[in-house]
């Protein structure tokens, strides 16, 4: 187990560097640059700018220098927001996105597991059909349609919730406890798709397991139905869900980009798109690296959790 973890941790570093390199190569190959204006710059000014940012050096010198700085955790100053370093922007924006993503994640897990299990226990009942139809709708309704529709109903018609933006209830550092009124709609919008996926996975996983011999044994021993389900069936039934939680995080990261745009939330997503559109290389590389590390470490945690839930798996 320990060897497995160490080996995986060793793989994560080159993979993060690979992702950063791809992003770096895309920026370098793409037309346009961050200092371009509509009227164009005098040649001397352009030369000075290129010199200042080291763009006059050969590509491998630039690449080497960028990578060396990134490995030391220094992404440099943003090209667009010139008075802020990338690390400062990450420090400001990451807690917002992380809070939103985490809330949606927990929401999806709780609702998905509950409804998936209930649907499996009462197979072919109204509850089963109802939740599976709702799940299908959740998979088919894009979050950028669901979000505005929620806004239309709950903010612009009923005036229950604010239509957009973000507030901290209690502020600690750059993060804190979010104001639930601002958090609710974005989190639900983001969670809908994954709730649906997890409910479907749980249902089919549980249906498989409930037919197994060891469940019959557990029932024959005289255990209460609750104990059979929670102690015995759920453990095997949620294995497909566990293996989905890894990819789900990567999707939720992408989902936050849209949801942050829908609800005008000042998180990483908006910075990310603007960084790409503005050719803001340091900021883009910074966010890419941050997310890549997050996703890869989380995948490792999922694999470790897998071994704990399923004792047949040995690394």
């Amino acid at each position, binding site marked *: 187990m320990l060897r497995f973890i160490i080996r995986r941790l060793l*793989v994560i570093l080159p*993979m993060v560097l*690979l*992702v950063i390199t*791809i*992003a770096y190569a*895309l*920026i370098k*190959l*793409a*037309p*346009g640059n961050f200092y371009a204006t509509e009227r164009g710059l005098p040649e001397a000014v352009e030369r000075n700018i290129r010199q200042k940012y080291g763009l006059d050096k050969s590509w491998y010198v630039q690449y080497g220098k960028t990578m060396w700085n990134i490995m030391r955790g220094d992404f440099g100053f943003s090209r667009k927001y010139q008075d802020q370093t990338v690390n400062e922007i990450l420090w400001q924006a990451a807690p917002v996105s992380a809070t939103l993503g985490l809330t949606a994640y927990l929401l999806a897990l709780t609702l998905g597991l509950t409804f998936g299990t209930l649907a499996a226990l009462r197979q072919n009942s109204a509850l089963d059909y109802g939740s599976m139809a709702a799940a*299908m*709708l959740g*998979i*088919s*309704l*894009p979050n*950028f*349609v669901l*979000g*505005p*529709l929620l*806004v*239309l109903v709950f903010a*612009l018609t009923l005036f229950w919730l604010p239509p957009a933006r973000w507030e901290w209830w209690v502020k600690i550092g750059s993060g804190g406890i979010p104001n639930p009124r601002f958090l609710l709609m974005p989190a639900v919008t983001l969670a809908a798709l994954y709730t649906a996926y997890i409910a*479907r*996975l749980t*249902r*089919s*996983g549980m249906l*498989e397991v409930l*037919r197994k011999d060891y469940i019959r044994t557990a029932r024959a021993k005289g255990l209460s139905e609750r104990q059979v389900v929670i102690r015995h069936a759920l453990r095997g039934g949620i*294995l*497909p869900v566990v*293996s*989905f939680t*890894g*990819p789900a995080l*990567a999707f939720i*990261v*992408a989902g936050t*980009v*849209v949801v942050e*745009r*829908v609800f005008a939330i000042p998180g990483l997503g908006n910075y*990310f*798109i603007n960084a*790409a*559109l503005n*050719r803001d290389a340091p900021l*883009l590389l910074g966010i*890419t690296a941050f*997310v*890549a590390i997050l*996703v890869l470490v989380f*995948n490792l945690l999922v694999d470790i959790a897998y071994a704990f839930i*399923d004792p*047949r*798996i040995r690394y």
Partner: protein
Amino acid sequence: MSQQPPSEIEKIPTRNPNESLDKAPTLAPPSTVAAQQKINTPEAIAADQLYGTAPPSNELWQETAGGQLEGTSLWRDAWRRLKKNKFAMLGLIVTGIIIVASLLGPTLLRIATKGTHTYDFIPQQGELVRAMPPSLNHPMGTDPQGRDMLARVLYGGQISLMVGLVSTFVSLLIGVAYGATAGYLGGRVDNLMMRIVDVLFAIPYMMLVIVLLALFEKSLVLLFAALGAISWLTMARIVRGQVLSLKNQEFVEAARSIGVPTWKIILRHLVPNTLGPVIVYATLTVPSVMLQEAFLSYLGLGVQAPRSSWGTLAAEGAQNIAIFPWLIIFPGIVMALTLFSLNFVGDGLRDALDPQMRKV
């Protein structure tokens, strides 16, 4: 039967549907029965693939009126099962209607209205250049430029469906070629190729696609390629698993013994036999790719104006949601309906064609 390339399967004459025949008890070979009660743990799947205990369920036997056992092809049997699935059939019909409407609708609408209802027609009269609520003339209203929303939604359907189909095809080509090669060659090559897939699985692609589309000139071709390039991984895994279970069977050995070159064995003998799961997965890829296209278009990175796709229409609608709610409601409904139907068709096909596949 399993050795037949798909073209011959279509040649099998269809028999008149017989009421008593449908209700007759179906005798299945033991492997199929086992396959239906299969265990869904990763190891079990791996074991199935490794030991070939999960071959494509090729044949079922049906009792004819005369009491004889008669073979029925996988495809005909699948179609029989699909027809029983009401949701899948409904999905198939709705999908068909939407496809036909998207293909023919814009042209018919242009002819019927003498060119005033097209995706890019902006009226000359100033008072018509505004967003009008749904009316008889404009069943879905107009957008702020006075363009007919029905025409834009139908045209957007063309683009969205095209992106879905072409990108799925791209992912199909890459995934099948990659998976079949890895599975057939086996050993170290297989190990290396699948490790690469594992590594790629862990990368947050959508970020790279966003970067790619934000940086380069936006074109449909780039969009097809980008979306196709990120959805082939699962396909490669599925095909590899199938090929692993097939490659030690006699017909492959026979082909090898008469000196058929490797690429031809893969192309002519192995790939046609993986078609069932591949079709099922491709059907489920189409809606997910369409969703991704809409997602990118919503961010302003996909299809560009004056062209419309469902994603761009929803994005325009979301901006004006308080004043012109019909701008998001109609594209949203049509898109959700399409994805809903496609997902049902995919689910139904999977249940009909390949009962062993995991339900996601």
